[in-house]
């Protein structure tokens, strides 16, 4: 099975609120206020692919669109034991929306050997759009399943995909090729690469394309051409007026807490 996993590099979402700041444009975060990391859902997706390969064999390619720094994300993916890495270099200085991203990813996929399974993360931890997977499926004319947390191969051309939904899960049987967006679960926590693999990954080749190499217009990412455009970004303030429950003994404190909760419960 040939699997492609789309990896996005983002500003570390765990950055504490006090360190988080905006770029001067007020249209994105200050890219220097935190480290750059691989989006967690993309790592959940890569882990899902690795487990499939562990069980059934196959080949895993990883693909990332972004500035030159996405090489780090691809190197980490290689260290986690992806087989081949591809990057679309965005040196335009503009942030694409999900639709332009999906167009570029689809163009790169057109250059690869036939794929059986294409995985994205459910959403990216920076803008949290959650749109790219579905848009990519449409670009490629393939079926799509969102919120997938488990994949099983059943025979040469079909997969079973488990989808988390509002109140439980559903299992679907899908023909390959298929696009799925991966969400977090208790069995796709990303593995930690071994030191040796991290060193080896530094020597592996990465294929890099420009937008021109993919026959895409250099204007694809211009803000005025995007379907979805950020016009303002602000930092909201936390209220922060918590009344801590005090008391001489634990029992007294628990009693006071119970009173407060009961007052709300009775008012409903």
């Amino acid at each position, binding site marked *: 099975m040939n699997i492609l996993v789309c990896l996005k590099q983002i500003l570390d979402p765990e950055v504490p609120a006090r360190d988080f700041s905006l770029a001067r444009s007020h249209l994105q975060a200050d890219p220097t206020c935190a480290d750059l990391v691989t989006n967690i859902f993309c790592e959940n997706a890569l882990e899902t692919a690795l487990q499939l390969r562990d069980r059934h064999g196959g080949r895993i390619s990883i693909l990332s669109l972004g500035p030159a720094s996405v090489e780090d994300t691809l190197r980490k993916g290689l260290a986690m034991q992806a087989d081949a890495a591809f990057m679309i270099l965005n040196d335009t200085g503009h942030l694409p929306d999900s639709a332009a991203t999906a167009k570029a990813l689809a163009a790169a996929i057109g250059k690869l050997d036939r794929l059986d399974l294409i995985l994205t993360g459910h959403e990216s931890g920076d803008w*949290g*759009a959650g749109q*790219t997977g579905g848009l990519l499926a449409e670009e490629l004319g393939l079926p799509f399943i969102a919120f997938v947390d488990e994949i099983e191969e059943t025979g040469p051309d079909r997969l079973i995909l488990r989808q*988390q939904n509002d109140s*439980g899960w559903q299992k679907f049987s899908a023909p390959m090729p*298929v696009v799925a967006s991966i969400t977090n679960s208790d069995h796709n926590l990303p593995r930690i690469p071994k030191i040796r693999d991290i060193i080896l990954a530094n020597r592996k080749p990465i294929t890099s394309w420009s937008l021109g190499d993919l026959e895409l217009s250099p204007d694809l990412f211009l803000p005025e051409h995007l379907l979805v455009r950020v*016009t303002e970004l602000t930092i909201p303030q936390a209220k922060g007026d918590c009344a*801590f429950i005090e008391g001489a003994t634990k029992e007294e404190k628990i009693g006071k*807490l119970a009173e407060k909760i009961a007052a709300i419960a009775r008012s409903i």
Partner: protein
Amino acid sequence: MSEPVSTVITALISPTQERASAGLMGAGQRLSETVGAEHVVVACGPEDSESASGLAHGADRVLLVRSPALVRDRQEVWLQCLTRMGSELNPAAIVLGNDALSQEITPRLAHRLGGASIGDAQTLTAEEGHISITRSVYGGKAMAKVKLQGTPAVVWVRAPSMDPARGRATPGQIEEWDFATEPEMKIQLLETQMDAGEGDRLEDARIIVSGGRGLGGPEPFEKLKELAKVLKGQTAASRAACDLGWAPHSWQVGQTGKKVAPQLYLASGISGASQHIMGIADSKAIAAINTDPNAPIFKHCQFGLVEDFHQVIGPLQEKLAELLA
């Protein structure tokens, strides 16, 4: 032949949560008024006449879709059905809810109609011929205003926290829409499983007691369930607790999980990461039990107790059972 844009479609494709359906209707109605457009509500039907006429009180037209294929592949059927309605009605916007199915079809529907897609809108407005929305970004650390430069704007909204529709003096028209087309069924539904507990009603819950990694294992979540029973509430969890397998994923609250808006959200053993807060910010009151007085969750609380959950839960439940008897 393109006519002037004059419709807003509200798509109620998973009408399971009362509160979400009401909020979604309200969002669609208000947007249609701002745009000066007809408000068309699409729902699964024909349902009982009572719920259809309920919808008609917030809409100019209600389209009840009947399709035999809906039971087998809701995603494909709704996608094709809404694509067809979208091309016929030429809407300025299609507004969907925050259920999994709506989230799943939003980008695909937008792509098929040549429009722009976005999710998790907290407000919806129309300015200078474009739809704009606001949404939390960077895991809740920033708020963005986003302009949708493509038409239609296909948007799923944070429905449960939106105000319901205003009742109209004269109800809209109710029509049935037969969608007999058998979509190409590439994907087959094999099995459906509901999680234990009543996680499906989380968004309607008035009281939610939730637990995180600080609870230390799966057993304390059983205690939370008992506490929820005493309070006639629901249970929820942080992503960390779900990832550890201590609670099912339908309990997950936050950026990637449910967005809830109860009268009281009681968080135990949850640090209060911004991604978690994103799911609970619309709660009337937030309270926390945490051993760390500096845990960020307290910045969002009305009241809090700095204690070990394990020592609190037993006596707390007893006391509440007594007070609420």
